[in-house]
């Protein structure tokens, strides 16, 4: 995983609430056995028509969206299916962070494990960001992970919460599997103590 310290980037605004992972990446793109090319199918059914032509009214197809690395989304982003392909698709497209008032639990976990930063802001900041993007699409914000702040174009810095453990992993570019593997002695001891609930073979 790529280490993440600060990010200064433009924002794409998608005001819909409850954006489910079936919209982020439709199930027909889950037949892959690798993670390659997921970004091409991000929001496929909103982004392209049935013939595969870009829909001009979808935000990712507007000229302002080009080069933006932060998605600003409505509440409860990433609900529904557990597919990690949703995080892969957002990253593959070029997003490094998603800002919302809340995230679905599994999506948030998947994002954190892949270097896609879920930033939770209060409703006022959320509203302010939408109006900033509406008025000035080229405006940039800065996310500082160590300071846990989001700096708005007017200079105001808003703190956002982040799981301290995930934050340490991110800043160091360390993955969680390494942490778990290092716990092998404790896992061994647990297995000795607890025994097996069921064996599948």
């Amino acid at each position: 995983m790529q280490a993440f310290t600060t990010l200064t980037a433009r924002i794409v605004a998608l005001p819909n609430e409850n954006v489910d992972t079936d919209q982020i990446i439709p199930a027909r793109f889950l037949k892959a056995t690798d993670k390659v090319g997921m970004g091409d199918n991000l929001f496929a059914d909103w982004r392209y028509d049935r013939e595969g032509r870009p829909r001009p009214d979808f935000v990712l197809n507007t000229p302002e969206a080009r080069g933006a690395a932060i998605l600003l989304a409505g509440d409860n982003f990433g609900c529904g299916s557990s597919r990690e392909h949703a995080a892969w698709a957002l990253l593959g497209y070029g997003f490094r962070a998603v800002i919302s008032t809340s995230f679905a639990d599994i999506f948030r976990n998947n994002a954190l494990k892949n270097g896609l930063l879920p930033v939770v802001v209060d409703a006022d900041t959320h509203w302010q960001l939408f109006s900033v993007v509406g008025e000035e699409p080229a405006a940039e914000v800065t996310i500082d992970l160590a300071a846990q702040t989001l700096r708005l174009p007017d200079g105001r810095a808003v703190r956002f919460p982040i799981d301290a453990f995930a934050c340490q992993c991110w800043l160091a570019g360390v993955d969680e599997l390494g942490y778990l593997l290092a716990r092998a002695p404790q896992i061994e001891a647990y297995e000795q103590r607890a025994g097996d609930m069921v064996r599948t073979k």
Partner: protein
Amino acid sequence: MTTSTQPQTLFDKIWRGHVVAQEPDSPAVLYVDLHLIHEVTSPQAFAGLRERGLPVRRPDKTVATVDHSIPTHDRSLPIADPQCARQIAQLEANCRDFGIPLYAADSPHQGVVHVIGPELGLTQPGMTIVCGDSHTATHGAFGALAFGVGTSEVEHVLATQCLLQHKPKTCEVRVEGRLRPGVGPKDVILALIAQIGVGGGTGHVFEYTGPAIRGLSMEGRMTVCNMSIEAGARAGMIAADDVTFEYLAGRPFAPTATAWEEATARWRKLPTDPGAAYDKTVTLDAAVLEPMITYGTNPGMVAAITDRVPTPDAVRDPVQRRALEKALAYMALTPGAALLGQPVDVVFIGSCTNGRLSDLRQAASLLRGRKVHKRVRVLVVPGSQQVKEEAEAEGLDVVFREAGCEWREPGCSMCIAMNGDQLQPGQYAVSTSNRNFEGRQGPGGRTFLASPLTAAASAVAGAIADPRAMMA
């Protein structure tokens, strides 16, 4: 500091019993008793193991089947979609290479992963169970802590049999009263989602309690727990009782003889202690529920079947109003129109929500001696080979065929539309599955989620129909 003498919830007891290590400011290292895998969310996890040269720590606590992308037509035919074929072949290779038992397409135990776990007796009270699938909550019906994980976490569990997890909060969902005829477990869970919304359970584990829940069969309890995720809760649980033990006794992987006695003694200590505190409680009255059906594009956009399509103008919150307008535009429904009588093109009976024997019996009870409407295509997809066999043993396949339904092979089928079973753009389906998201059952397809009874009644009527009108 908590002590063992303090009253604990079912969730607390299982959580505490599975913490392998817990460092300050870090998530718990949580042990997983049973890991279920399928073809869609596992290939990249196995690729990760290969890259690092890691084995699967406990292949004997792991089990695999093919369900999401497997065709439900005649199994002797080849798989037409080369990507699906490749994904299934990859799972077979991964299971072979890493020593994981696989219930493959030709196995008498193949089926939807959340149907076969319970029917094999692998799912047991007090266990932690995970799967790269959000409907893993199904297994919570046995008083287990079961939740969906992403592919990175699938890799973590394969490599270490553990997960890093922050302790979630608990929410008691108390369902009072008794269900009326024609109203079932699917209606209960849809009514709950109507009440609390699709994000209402975020950060929480549900424990369903109350007389209406106690009165459900194991299969009904699975239907309720299954859709916990549609309210945002990762897990839903129901304390095990005699109904649970009766279901489990004699199943292939259930304990036997003295091990059974020991297990049931242990299981009886798991239910929530009197006086234990939940972080929050939600209450629902089963006695006033009617059959429920969705009208929009998430499971929270749901109403009693006798209601009308809601009117966006009546919604004050601008974000909610826009969401409703967008959903009704996608569904091409007229605000204020009655839900009853909305025309239907396809009916899907199946899935991890409603693909079990009792669901098929319910649907068949209305279809016996009737014909499905000539406009409607009806797919009946049993949840597993075992469900299929049991249904055929009691002649349900004949009932469905004579009514004009397709009787198919087990799989996820039109719930997720990965295997070729899908709606055409613009078609309407009444579906017993769990998600009515845009395009979920095929690009441009429009889904009404409902119970097996409502699905069967609608198949006969060719339109959304109230099953109570057809019940003897």
